C-alpha cells in the first residue's frame, strides 16, 4: 500500500469483514420453527445465502426466527427493507428465492402473489 487511495480501496474491500456488526440494511428473516425446518427452511436459507453471495449483495443480513403461528404456510420468509413494512412470504421454496431477492430485496418490488402478511415495525 503506497497511497491514501490504496487505503481507501482496501477499506472498501475489507468492510464486509465487519459490516455485519454495524448493519442498518435490509433484513431477510427465515422461519426456523420445527415445522419450518420440516418444510425445508434450511434449504431455503442455503438458497438465500447462495443468491446473496452470487450477487455480491452488501448490507443484507439473514437471520432466523422461531414459530410465528402460521405453520401451514411454511416455509416463511420475511423481507424488511430499512424504513419499510415487514413483508412475510409463504410457501417459499429454494426455487422462489432468486426471484424474491431480485425483485424485492434488490429492486424494492413486492411479489404480491406470494405475500401472506404485512406488518409495520
Amino acid at each position: 500500500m503506497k497511497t491514501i487511495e490504496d487505503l481507501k480501496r482496501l477499506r472498501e474491500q475489507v468492510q464486509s469483514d465487519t459490516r455485519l456488526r454495524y448493519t442498518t440494511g435490509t433484513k431477510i428473516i427465515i422461519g426456523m420453527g420445527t415445522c419450518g425446518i420440516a418444510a425445508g427452511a434450511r434449504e431455503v436459507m442455503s438458497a438465500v445465502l447462495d443468491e446473496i453471495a452470487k450477487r455480491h449483495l452488501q448490507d443484507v443480513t439473514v437471520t432466523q426466527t422461531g414459530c410465528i403461528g402460521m405453520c401451514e404456510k411454511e416455509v416463511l420468509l420475511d423481507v424488511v427493507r430499512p424504513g419499510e413494512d415487514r413483508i412475510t412470504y409463504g410457501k417459499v421454496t429454494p426455487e422462489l428465492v432468486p426471484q424474491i431477492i431480485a425483485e424485492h430485496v434488490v429492486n424494492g418490488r413486492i411479489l404480491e402473489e406470494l405475500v401472506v402478511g404485512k406488518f409495520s415495525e
Partner: protein
Amino acid sequence: MEHIRAHVLICAGTGCASSGSKRVEAAMKRELAERGLDKEIKIVETGCHGFCEMGPLVIVYPEGVFYVRVQEEDVPEIVENHLYKGRIVERLLYKEPVTLEKVPNYSDIDFYKKQNRQVLINCGRIDPEKIEEYIAVGGYQALGKAVTAMTSEDVVEEVKKSGLRGRGGGGFPTGLKWSFTRKAQGDKKYVVCNADEGDPGAFMDRSVLEGDPHRVIEGMAICGYAIGADEGYIYVRAEYPLAIKRLKIAISQAEAMGVLGDNIFSSGFQFHIKIKEGAGAFVCGEETALLASIEGKRGMPRPRPPFPANAGLWGKPTNINNVETFANVPQIINQGADWYAAIGTEKSKGTKVFALTGKINHTGLAEVPMGITMREIIYDIGGGIQNGKKFKAVQIGGPSGGCLPEELLDLPVDYDSLISVGAMMGSGGLVVMDETTCMVDVARFFLNFTQSESCGKCTPCREGTKRMLEILTRITEGQGQEGDIELLETMAKNIKATALCGLGQTAPNPVLSTIKHFRDEYEAHIREKRCPAGACSKLVGYTITSNCKGCGLCKKVCPAEAISGTVKEQHQIDPDKCLKCGACMAKCPFKAISKG
C-alpha cells in the same frame, strides 16, 4: 460461493480468557463444523468489552445478542437454538441487577446506555489481531490525512484546539506538550507511550492495547509526524503478556502494510516503533524513571527541568503520553478538533475511561463524557451498591488520589473539580466503598502501597511515608493517641512539598482526603478505640443485646467458650476470651449479637 450471515464475537480479553473463553471458542468451532454452519458463520476473537465480570462474553451479530458467563457446555445450545433455529437462549442473557429484567440486546444494557464510547468504540467489536478489521472501521485514515494533507504544525494546532489533556493522571494539555517537543532542538526525537499502568485497580490501558492496539500505534505515528520524530517506544509492563503479544502482531502487520516504517503513504515520513517491557514497578510510570528504565538503567526519577520535551531518551527531545491519550488522537484528526471539543466540559474535553471496582454492582470499564456526575457513574452505569448496602465513599485516582463522600456525589467529574476537593483524576481507577469499609483502613492500604513502591531515592518519601504508615497502623489497632491526626496532617504537607517526584508528592493524598471527609472515623478509633464500620479486626467487639432470649445457641458454637449465661436470661461475651470469629452472630436466631 459463500455468504457470511452471522458473526459470533468471543471476547478474548484477559478477563474473559481467564474465565474460559478459549474453551468456549474451541467448542464453538467444533460445533459449527459438525452442524455444517462453519461456512456461513464466522467466529471473531475480540478484545475486552469492559464487562469482564460477566465473562466469558459471546455476542451474536447481526442481532447483537449478548450472552454472559458462557461456558463450554452452553455452546451446543447456542448453536442449535440460536444459530440454527434463531431462538435466543434466554438463560444466558444478561439480567439487570435491580429490575432482574433480561436484556437480549447489547445496546440496551444499562451499563452501556449512558456511556459514550469513543476510545473504546472498537474494543470488543473488531479482531485486534487483524489489521484489516481496523482498516475496515476507518483505521489509519487519520495518519494518511495527517502526513499527506497537513503540515506538522497543523497537526499540533488541531490537537491543541481539541483541548485534549493527558490521560495518564496529571492532565497536562497534550497539544502544548507536543508543541514543546516540536520546537525543541535536536537531530533525533522520540515518541514514548506510557503503558506502565501501575495504579492498583486500573486496567483501561491494558484493555485498549489488547482490544484495539492499532489505534495506539496510529496515535503515536501521528505524534511522531507532528513533533518530527522517527522512532517510538511503547513501555508496557511485563505483567501484560496479552497486550504485548497483540502489540507485536499489530506492529508487524502495520509494517507489512506500509502504514508504519519508511516513506509512509509516499510522504517521505518514516516512523518505527519498538516495545520495551517493564518490570512493573509503580514508580516506573513516572516519566523520568520510565525513560531511565528504557535506557537500561534503574527506574528512578530525576529532578525536572529539564523536561523530557527537551532532554528525554538518551538526552534527545522526547514526547511521552499515556495510552489513552494517544488513542484519542486519530479521532481528533479524522473528525476535527471542534467535534472533539464539543464533548465534555469547558476545561476538560472528550471522554474518560474509568475502571469501576469495589462494592458496586457492575464492575468493569466505562467510558463517559467528562463532566458527568459521580452519581451517574456509580448508580446509572455501575448499577449501584452491591447487596443493597449504603454508599460510603468513592476513591478516585488510585494511590495519588482521594476519597469523595456522599455529599460530593453530584460533583461533575473533570480534572479541575476533582483537584478542588482534594482528589485527582489519576488514571481513572474508581473504587466504590460501602458502609462496611473503614476509611482509616483505606488510607492505610494506599499508603502501604506507595510506601512499598517508593524508590527510596529521596528522604521525605522513603522515611516520611514509613512513619505515616506506622501511625495509621497504630490507629487501626486501637493504639492511636491524641494529636495523631494533626501529626499526620503536618507530615503529609511536608512530604508533598519536598518529595522529588509525583509518587511522594501525591502519596499523602488518600490520608488527607479521608481525614478531611471522615475525621470522625479517625476520632472514633483514637478516642473510643472503636471502628464504626466494624472493619478493623483489632477493634471490633461482639456484644449481646437485650434482644437475647437466652436460647444458648451462641454458647454452643463459640470455639473459645467466651459466652456465659443462664437459660432464658441475657447472655454475655467475655471480650478477653473472644476470638472475634463471628460464629455466634451468624447462629443467633434473634439477631441479638452486634458487632462494632
